[in-house]
């Protein structure tokens, strides 16, 4: 019972935290579209604005799964064949952020934030 009660309390705490700050974080995300075909990113150097949260939509047109990964962006996401993966990235300072397909290491690209 104690366990259930504390879990409920923790859940209530989480919900409360979301409600209090939910409005602030709803700033419009910049959207970046990337497609993967024949294990190539298109575009391979997409651009995005600085200091705004970004949503990256990765469309995998190959017949095999890929894993969109970037160390600097802190992203690791499997994208199944012929589907689109959606990735949220926090606001970034200007710079070049490399990404790659972890299942096919030669497939690389760079997000240019400016």
């Amino acid at each position, binding site marked *: 019972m104690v366990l259930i009660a504390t879990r409920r309390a923790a859940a209530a705490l989480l919900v409360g935290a979301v409600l209090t700050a939910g409005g602030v974080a709803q700033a419009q995300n910049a959207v970046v579209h990337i497609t993967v075909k024949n294990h190539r990113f298109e575009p391979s150097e997409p651009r995005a604005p600085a200091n705004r949260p970004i949503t990256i939509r990765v469309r995998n047109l190959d017949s095999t*799964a890929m*894993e969109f990964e970037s160390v600097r962006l*802190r992203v690791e996401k499997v994208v199944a064949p012929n*589907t*689109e993966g959606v*990735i949220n990235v926090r606001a970034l300072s200007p710079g070049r952020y490399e990404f790659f397909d*972890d299942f096919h290491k030669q497939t690389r690209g760079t997000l240019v934030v400016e």
Partner: protein
Amino acid sequence: MLAALLIVFREVFEAGLIVGIVMAVTAGIAGRGWWIGGGAAAGVLGACLLALFAASLSAAFEGFGQELFNAAILLVAVAMLTWHNVWMARHGRELAAQMRAAGHAVKAGTKSLAGLGVVVAIAVLREGFEVVLFLYGVAAASEPGSGLAIIAGGIAGLALGVATCVLTYLGLLTIPSRHLFAVTTAMLAFLAAGMAAQAVAFLQAANALTALGATLWDTSWLLSDRSVLGRALHTLIGYSDQPTALELLVYVATLAVTFALLKLFAREPAAEATA
């Protein structure tokens, strides 16, 4: 072949650590082989099933099905680990006394073994999912010949993962048995706290949690959580090189709740020694 080995090893490494710890925790309890083996088998089966439905999972919840699924099963694992720890705090002493008296395995603790079986299944499922997708992609796409080398690399990676598990287990068993219980209790508590923080990270990635999302610090220059040591610490104690405030809060809260529960239950008189 080396690339495949590294990819597969990186995925099974984490599961290997967790299974090794669970094996050490349950050392000497009868029937644990069934629960751990069963959990691992269920995890592999689940990973294959999940890979089959990867496309629908990804598309679910506006593209965040994977993140929400990961968060959900991680929270189940956190609950199971906490339950086991509390159960052991209550019954561990009798269990240890029986083990010493009988000098061999005791038939007890099956209830909490089921919980740990679930933890093993979840660990294997999470890591296995990516391995299955990766190897399937290779098998489906590669020209004959090179595919075989990659499969061989995958098997070698898997073997290294199993070795991680065995080494973790044997390493923990070198701890004198009177300290082992305290050590594994703490390890499970940190494991659970790290998983709770990871679940938060997944929920934040899916925009399901937006509060306290500011990054607290960046220690990636010191120890990246993508490096081998960083990954090991990530699994064992929940190390993150760029944690958000909410991750840290949930991490600390999970630890606090666990240790409070342990104190609460350990204090109760062991009146049900015969139960």
